[in-house]
């Protein structure tokens, strides 16, 4: 069921929509809204019918299980390529937003851009390309993944818009899409038997891009300059890629790394020096008092022993526990507890993505001929 969930802004949550349910930062789930269904979390169940008709972005609340009087919440969001990327399972190899957005920016992706992407992989980058580009030709060599992605793209409305996906080993067989290929491309009866890709942006996320590069000449634009980005984890792959790019007439070769970092806003307790000193004074005072008390007790014991008939005394602890605890030591202080002072701090993720891949960029201008006629005409008009 193709919907335009990724290409049109929607106001209200409706039956049949693909929606993202945000449970927490690291837990975002894709669901298809179905009035008969319920979305289950460990905190409780959220019936879809409570979502339908509400605006996207709505918080949905239920009482938690067991009737403790507490509430549980989720937010229902309309998917965007970036949220979709966050919702994918972590084990999938994903081109993350810091990389994908830089590649799109640097290669000038816009409504006119005709993009080649190989391979499709998890399809996360495909969604971002599809949002912006004129057309996306995505290639996937793994048959099962191809089928999964084709289905997903169809459900997400991408195939109906501006995406073509083709099952292909581009390293072996290049990028040309012909009638009879395993592809989402439809060929009209009596129409052309192959597609003129005419690509001006190429993204190669392949283990051996150097095998695919020689095939690019057949499919890149002849009139404009084409740009390529090869996405490779190892530096040795970069070296072989540069070699292939140079051999095949690509220029302005530059490799870069993108380092994305994410910070949470947190609070650190402000612990004043005077409070720390006061705590020390308090400890000292109680220690002195304890010694004096002990002296008194020893004296008392001596007297008691002399007077054997005295009733046994209840012993009190020698040192009293302090009431002065400015930093909440030994108690559980919640970050931001208004009984304490706090300083705002940024905290980086506990585990960072220290490396995704190297990005090797290059450009090629196939036809460098001049449009002499147009120039002459303009100048003639000017002179006239």
């Amino acid at each position, binding site marked *: 069921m193709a919907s335009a969930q990724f290409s049109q802004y929607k106001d209200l949550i409706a039956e049949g929509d693909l929606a993202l349910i945000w449970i927490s930062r690291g837990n975002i789930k894709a669901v298809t809204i179905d009035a008969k269904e319920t979305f289950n979390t460990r905190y409780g169940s959220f019936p879809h019918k409570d979502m339908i008709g509400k605006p996207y972005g709505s918080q949905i609340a239920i*009482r938690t299980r067991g*009737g403790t009087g507490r509430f549980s919440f989720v937010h229902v969001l*309309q998917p965007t390529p970036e949220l979709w990327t966050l919702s994918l399972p972590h084990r999938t190899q994903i081109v993350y937003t810091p990389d994908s957005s830089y590649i799109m*920016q640097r290669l000038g992706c816009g409504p006119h851009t005709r993009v080649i992407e190989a391979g499709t992989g998890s399809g996360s980058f495909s969604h971002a390309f599809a949002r912006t580009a004129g057309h996306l030709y995505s290639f996937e060599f793994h048959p099962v993944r191809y089928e999964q992605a084709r289905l997903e793209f169809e459900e997400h409305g991408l195939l109906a818009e501006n995406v073509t996906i083709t099952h292909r080993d581009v390293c072996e067989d290049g990028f040309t899409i012909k009638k009879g290929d395993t592809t989402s491309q439809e060929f009209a009866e009596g129409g052309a038997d192959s597609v003129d890709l005419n690509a001006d942006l190429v993204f190669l996320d392949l283990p051996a891009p150097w095998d695919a590069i020689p095939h690019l000449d057949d499919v890149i634009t002849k009139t404009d300059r084409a740009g390529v980005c090869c996405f490779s984890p190892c530096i040795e792959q970069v070296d072989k890629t540069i070699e292939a790019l140079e051999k095949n007439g690509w220029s*302005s070769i530059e490799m870069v790394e993108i380092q994305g970092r994410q910070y949470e*806003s947190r609070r650190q307790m402000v612990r004043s020096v005077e409070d720390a000193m006061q705590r020390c004074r308090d400890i000292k005072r109680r220690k002195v008092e304890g010694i004096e008390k002990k002296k008194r007790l020893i004296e008392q014991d001596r007297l008691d022993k002399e007077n054997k008939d005295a009733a046994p005394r209840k012993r009190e602890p020698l040192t009293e526990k302090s009431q002065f605890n400015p930093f909440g030591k030994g108690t559980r202080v919640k970050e931001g507890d208004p009984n304490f002072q706090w300083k705002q701090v*940024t905290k980086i993720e506990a585990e960072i993505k220290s490396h995704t891949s190297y990005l090797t960029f290059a450009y090629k201008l196939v036809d460098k001929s001049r449009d002499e006629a147009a120039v002459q005409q303009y100048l003639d008009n000017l002179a006239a």
Partner: protein
Amino acid sequence: MDPLSRIAFEQYVMITLPSEKCKIVQMVPNTTVSLGKFGAFNVNDVVGYPLGTKFEILYDDETVEAIEHDKRVKAKSDKAGVKVIVGKVKVLEPSVKRDEGLENVGNSENNRELIDMGRDIQKMTTEKIESLKKQSTSGNEIISKIIESHGTFDKKTVFSQEKYLKRKKQKFDKQFTVEYLSSSFLLQYLIDKGDIQRILDMSEESIGMLLNLANIRPNGTYLCMDETGGLLTYFMLERMFGGDENTGAEGKIVVVHENEHANLDILKYSNYSEAFIKKHVLTISILDYFEPTTVEELQKEFTPLSREAVADLKSGAKNTYFRKLKWYKIHVQEIEIATEWQFDGLVVASTLHLPTLLPMLGKKVHGSRPIVCYSQFKETLLETAHTLYDDLNYLAPTIQETRCRPYQSIRGRLHPLMTMRGGGGYLLWCHRVIPADEPELVVIEP
């Protein structure tokens, strides 16, 4: 000529030079462009070639002519009145590798012989080089000759070799590329010019990520504060329209500004017409946006007449009427924008106090739509993130940083560039959400 694919007359283009500096030049017919020490060329000689073409300036006795420095595209670095020699241009062949000179040189593994190689080692005089330059010799040829004449070149370390060649290349190479003035190139130009503060220290990677996180699309309606003189707006327009007025996309950007008029100066370099910009970029002052006047009040100043009444006006009065009607319509639209419009995204690059500003602007954003705020400083975003975190209208504000680290991409000598610009800014990203009422109390049977 399609100004998106071919160099066209009157178009603003970016010219990149061997020194990796760049300049913006308008392709005015029958004029000359001077690249200072790199030479000069005639505009008519490059128009009509595809954008992205790399040219080399050639000099031979037939074409050399002395010209006054072109006044319309005056480059700051050139001394006024200096005569520049205009050369012929030649399209460079694709087989030319960037650093061929270097690859042909036997490089040694040590630098024992060199402690400070200074000018004295170099056998070729600057005069000789200048004379070579005036002959029909390409930059690479000149550099090869310099290397030959440089007695100790192959005794230098890899690094000093590279540094040396780069310096020489920048000095004598007469190649230049004519590029489409993309948003990224415009940014690079402003950075090269030293306008870092004017563009709030933005980097290409930060602004690229901002556009993706804000989910900018051709058909969206976006609320924006742009304190970069229009640079941010230009980036958005490029994503939405790609330099083309005829895509049919209906997207709009409402730019809220804090002065009498919005400063979007940078848009003058774009390929968009004034009419197109007026249609898709609507500006409104922060006062008119947050304290809009009412239609009733407007009508105290001016009331539109019925069609019949207008027809009855005399010619002079009619003109006055239509002038006032235009003023009235603009203000009615402003009121609509301020009171009725809901937005598909909020994008902010402002130095106003963000913890107050963002919640005010955020109210105008539709549920589930992203909010992205750029700042040069992480500390500012931290404060803002705390404010938004405590507000149930915003989901999961996080601070994002992205940094691009370019490499010297020469095979056999791969390494990250030794120095680069610091800074680049930070992004705050969250989504507008709609808090739930408390669910009804369901009485559980005892």
